[in-house]
């Protein structure tokens, strides 16, 4: 799983180095100020033009906030060994994302996945 999450990291790394790698620019995401998120996967959308992780994040005050995390294209992920079942609803993720540069929160691009553990069975922890 570390290798597969590494592919998602690749998306963030390429964004940081060059900008335009997909059908649109990633300049809207602030590469200089990533934020760390820890939450539960609500949905993994393996769809074009970009895969999405819908992540429910618990705030310090207990409120739940839903984030849309835009990744690279499914075709690029397939070449890195991903599939539509790589992430499942209920999976717990801890990752670093780049939020929108000047708009509100709750939208981001995965930058550095730090930790993932499966909620059912809790077999693996990656740091």
């Amino acid at each position, binding site marked *: 799983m570390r290798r597969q999450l590494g592919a998602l990291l690749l998306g963030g790394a*390429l964004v940081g*180095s*060059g*900008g*335009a*790698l*997909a*059908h*649109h*620019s990633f*300049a*809207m995401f602030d590469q200089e100020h990533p934020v760390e998120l820890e939450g539960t996967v*609500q*949905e993994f*959308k393996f*769809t*074009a*033009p*970009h895969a*999405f992780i*819908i992540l429910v994040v618990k705030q310090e005050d207990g409120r739940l906030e*839903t*984030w*849309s995390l*835009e990744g690279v*294209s*499914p*075709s*690029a992920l*397939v*070449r890195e060994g991903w599939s539509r079942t790589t992430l499942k609803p209920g999976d717990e993720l801890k990752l670093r994302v780049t939020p*929108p*540069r*000047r*708009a*509100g929160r*709750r*939208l981001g691009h995965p930058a550095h996945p730090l930790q993932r553990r499966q909620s059912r069975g809790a077999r693996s922890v990656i740091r």
Partner: protein
Amino acid sequence: MLDRRAIQIAALLAMLALAASGARAHDEAKYPDWKGQWTRGNGPAQWDPSKPGGPRQQPPLTPEYQAIWEANMASQASGGESYNPQAVCLPSGMPRLMIAYEPIEIIVTAEATYVRSDHLSEFRRIYTDGREWPKNVEPTYTGYSIGRWIDSDGDGRYDMLEVETRHLKGPRTFDASGIPFHVDNAAVIKERIALDKADPDLLRDEITAIDHALTRPWTVTRTYRRDRAGEWFEHVCTEDNHHVVIGKESYFLDAAGYLMPTRKDQPPPDLRYFQSRK
């Protein structure tokens, strides 16, 4: 009598079939092997791969189009992408298609060479049947391409495809930074495509753009690396595109389908045809 005539006809057909297959085999031997999956070979997706993206691309734009490009980059920096047709899934068209955002496939036949890309499901046709330019051509994003095979080293096999593309349709940009083409869409794109002499898995496309937004022809060389066993994938951009352009503003749809701003203090779209809640 009938049987003998039938046998003669069958023999004649067999001879014709043999002759035809022999000719086809002969023709195929003249064309280079460009089969496989070609992946962008020189890094990020700026138009001139020999220079960093953004302002350091230094395209030879006229002052008018330099100003348009700078406005596009400023828009991009603030989160806007209304200048970028791809953001709303319009095709890259030529020559941006040859950036190869996703791997490309090149299908060589005697009559035409086809270039297809998973990215945005794009497809271009390069006629190599010796035709002249048609008088009336409806412009398209990939344009109308006529190619000519070259045997540059005289070994009896073609090794280079020279291509000219005209009759292009807009809007198109060179790359995601918004380097513009002239709005008259009179661009002519010339290409010289060939394998590296020492490395048969390295393909080069020398691309020259001639356009009224440019002060001189602009030539770049893009490279592609071959994977003979690469898997192909479907990429339907409109399947779940969250980027929305309304007027000159770019917005984003969140997971629940609500419209989000992409920059600080961005105004909402004009909702005059919707009843507001009092």
